[in-house]
């Protein structure tokens, strides 16, 4: 990797910025810091970061307001906040954040989420159409799902559910986004459809217990494919 990935850390707490600068720096990122929304917008324009780590409780503006502005650039966006209510998480995701980590966080987890977000960004440019996890291979172009090389028949809804997760591997996909993509607008609150689809996919593709499933449930928020 010749050009280091540029990460912008937006947080009003110096200690948190120091912590993230240390751990991200060790991992080879080039870290830029901003302590409020104004500085963050300036850094966004000047430094053109590849990934932004955004705290929601900023002194001058609510972090949620920045989410669409950051989305407008090419940067991947990870919200890092002490706010842990389901509504805040869903709001951030629906506004376009790639993922959400609550404080207190584990730095390893932050790294993993950043990697997943960046990977998704590359994939959205249309390069990857095949996603693999465990013994499963999903070919999004051919709409084919195989397990240990054998084709598995999924119902259209089950396939839609799995495909939507495969388009965002490692990232949490909100209930509303899944329902809209598979069942269409107007079904955003029919969460039981998702529960049923998740059961079907797990039963057909995995032998493991639910707690070891690659299709991870985020209570009240959505699903995540651990690819």
């Amino acid at each position, binding site marked *: 990797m010749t050009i280091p990935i540029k990460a912008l850390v937006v947080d009003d707490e110096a200690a*948190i910025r120091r912590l993230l600068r*240390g751990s991200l720096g060790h991992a080879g990122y080039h870290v830029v810091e901003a302590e409020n929304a104004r500085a963050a917008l300036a850094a966004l324009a000047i430094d053109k970061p590849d990934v932004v780590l955004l705290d929601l409780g900023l002194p001058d503006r609510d972090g949620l307001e920045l989410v669409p502005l950051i989305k407008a650039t090419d940067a991947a966006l990870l919200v890092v906040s002490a706010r842990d*209510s389901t509504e805040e998480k869903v709001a951030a995701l629906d506004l376009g954040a790639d993922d959400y980590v609550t404080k*207190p966080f584990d730095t390893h987890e932050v790294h993993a989420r950043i990697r997943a977000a960046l990977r998704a960004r590359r994939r959205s440019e249309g390069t990857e159409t095949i996603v693999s996890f465990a013994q499963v291979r999903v070919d999004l172009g051919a709409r084919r799902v195989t397990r240990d090389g054998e084709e598995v028949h999924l119902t259209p809804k089950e396939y839609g559910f799995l495909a939507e997760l495969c388009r965002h591997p490692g990232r949490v996909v909100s209930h509303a986004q899944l329902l809209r993509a598979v069942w269409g607008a107007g079904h955003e609150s029919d969460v039981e459809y998702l529960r049923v689809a998740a059961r079907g996919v797990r039963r057909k593709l995995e032998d493991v217990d639910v707690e070891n499933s690659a299709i991870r*449930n985020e209570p009240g928020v959505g699903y995540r494919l651990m690819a």
Partner: protein
Amino acid sequence: MNAARPDPDALLRAATRAGQGRLKVFLGAAPGVGKTYEMLGDAAAQRLTGVDVVVGVVETHGRADTEAQLQGFEVIPRAVVPHRGQSLAEMDIDAILHRRPALVLVDELAHTNAPGSRHDKRWQDVEELLTAGIDVWTTLNIQHVESLNDLVASFTRVRVRETVPDRVLDNAEIEVVDLPPDELIARLKAGKVYVPQEAARALGHFFSKSNLSALRELALRRAAQTVDAQMLEDLRASATVGAWAVGERLLVAVGANPAAPEVVRAGKRLADALRAPWTAVHVETARERNAASAAQLADAMHLAVQLGGQVLSLSGSSVVEGLADAVADTRATMLVVGKPQPRRWPWQQRLHIQPLARRLPGLSLHVVQTVAPAPGGKCALPKVPAMPTGLVPGLAATALVTIVGRAIAVAGNNITNVALLYLLPVLLVATRYGLLTGVVTGLVATLAYNFYFIPPTGTFTIADPQNFITVGVLLLVAVVASQLTARLRAQALLAARNARQSAALAGFARRLNGISEPDELARALCGEAARLLDARTVLLLPGVEGLAVRTGEPADCHLELLDHAAARWSFDNGQPAGRGSSTLTASEWLFTPLAASNRALGVFGVARPDATLPVRPDQLPLLGSLVDQSALALQRIQLESEAAGIRTLEERDRLRAALLSSVSHDLRTPLTAVLGFLRALTPLDEEQREILGLARAEGERLQRFVSNLLDMVRVEAGAIALAIEPVDLAEAVASAVQDLRGAIADRAVQIDIAADLPLVMVDPRLFHHCLINLIENAVRHGGMNGPIIIAAIIAAGRRNRELELTVLDSGPGLPAGMESLVFETFTRLEGSDRKGGTGLGLAIVRGFCTAMGLEVVASNRPDATGACFTIRFPESHLRTVSEDA
């Protein structure tokens, strides 16, 4: 007193409705009368005036004219609900809520939605739309109204299963779409009415002319009834007074006679049949009344209250006049009276039907045939002494008149004037001492006049026939005058008694208003009642040790065990007990409950020192008023003190919540940094590695503690906002186990949850926290001997099937008797403090479960040592799904 005061309940109901959408129902007698057509026509007019109207669902049944009407409306596409391989199209309530029109048209209110829809019935959808502030117009056939369903089925022999509760109509504007039966039958024959094929045969009978007429009448009456109820409601809320009668309103005249209960029952039956409100009225006239009839009257009035009637008692110069007043007061349209009893004595008053009919020409009269039980034997009250009082002054006055008369006779010899003089003592005595004394005095006066003045004087013989007339007239005048004055006197006495009681009650009410302490109220009630009823009194209020004497008059009064039992019974049953009632009559006390809002607040007892009946029957209303007023005052005092208590508590809770929330929040950020830095450090040797590990573990413990503190603040503040959604138990448990991976470390966790269990309706985040705390508790206290088992089973519950989620450990279990204590805040079982933990975890579990409507219990494992925590999901929280969706 409360004539112009708005009814608080009515105001409350009005306030609840504010901000709601309005419902308008196009009510028809039968299919085919043109409800939908009418609704669309009216809605088109609304649309032209600029109202934002959309069509939620309209069934045109392929009728061209209706379909033409639909042109120009925005129609919300229906949602497709898959059901057993079919696709059923249902109204898309979410789309309507999202679109937020001012008015939405929803055809066929009684429709049953396809299985799997949000609500079972369309009227529930409509209620949701109304709650969201959207006006709804809808159509309904009369046979779908729940309360009329039986009635319609009884004559049409067609029973519909789709019914709409009456309360939906109660607040609705109703427009009857009316079509004469002949025209409807003509339309039916012309094929203009939509009838499903399979129902055609049954409906052939349904559409007979007699049925249609009956249905039409029902529809019109139901509409009138709703309008009437709404008008009464408005009236109550605004306290307007005026002549408003629209539907029937019954007045039941209750006399003090054995037939009274029968009249009351007949009135109640009639009122039910007419679905009309009713009032039992008694007119108190100047007539003297004996104790037996007073008791009969009290019984009849009590019966009326029990049967749900209002009661009214007023005094009037005659029964007819009193009833006329009552009719005006209650805006009654019909009067129910008992058939007059044959008179046993010529002077007995009775109600005459003819004068009543003449006096109240606009009123329907309903005369009830009664079979009166044999009178007597009812009451063993001490008899009023029959000896006429006031004879001595009467005779003395007569003697005086005789002496004066002699003087006049000697002087002027005009004995006719003397006869007039004799009237004086008669009138005086009759006014003062009543009828009997007056008559006796009159008789004596007549004899004296005869003896002393009519020739031959000194004998009772009358020589001149003319003097017979004088004596006769004197006697007659004496009797008539006595009767008249006696009646006046009785009326005056009654008025004075009423005035005295009213004054006493008004004074008592004023006194109660100023009272803010239950003790003060108790003293006021006991003192006042003792004075007015001339009896011993006692007030019992519930306390920590059950019902106990709060105060008495005299203050040292003592209750026997039996008396306590009677008081207890009265309190529990909300009815009088003890002597003079029908329960536990061996007690010498009569206990009456102090009841407000259908809840007994205390018991008031009355007794007489000589152990006779504690309260004379004619004083029962007085006792009732005293007790009722006191009950209201007591309730007010209690509410006031509760409100004051709540304000203090709220303030304290608010402060505590604010403090804890801000502290917990501020703790998180530094904790994140500390934990992050600790992880970033690389140990140089084994000792540093151990110390770093410990520091990290302690930091994580602190982190869980902070998170629990935040949760507990939410529970204690009672401000848990729920976001209920269907949750897969297996997934939820998996998420919790994943989040706790660090704490669980190498402990074995065994999960037995079948893949096809119903989903549970919970708040996912709260439930996640419940699971985390339960599993963490098992890790901490569950010993190392066996795995932690998390299992879910469908159990046959107490009423329905329920789902049980259990978390089992293999620790020492719970000490006996501590099973429910473990859920208390900061309770830690013996020996567990060293293992850390905040003592909050299980309290949070219970708080969150309670908020979500779940039950959580702790017990010991039946199969092995160890504790067992069970969360029960009642049937209402389960949602069965099939994988065909």
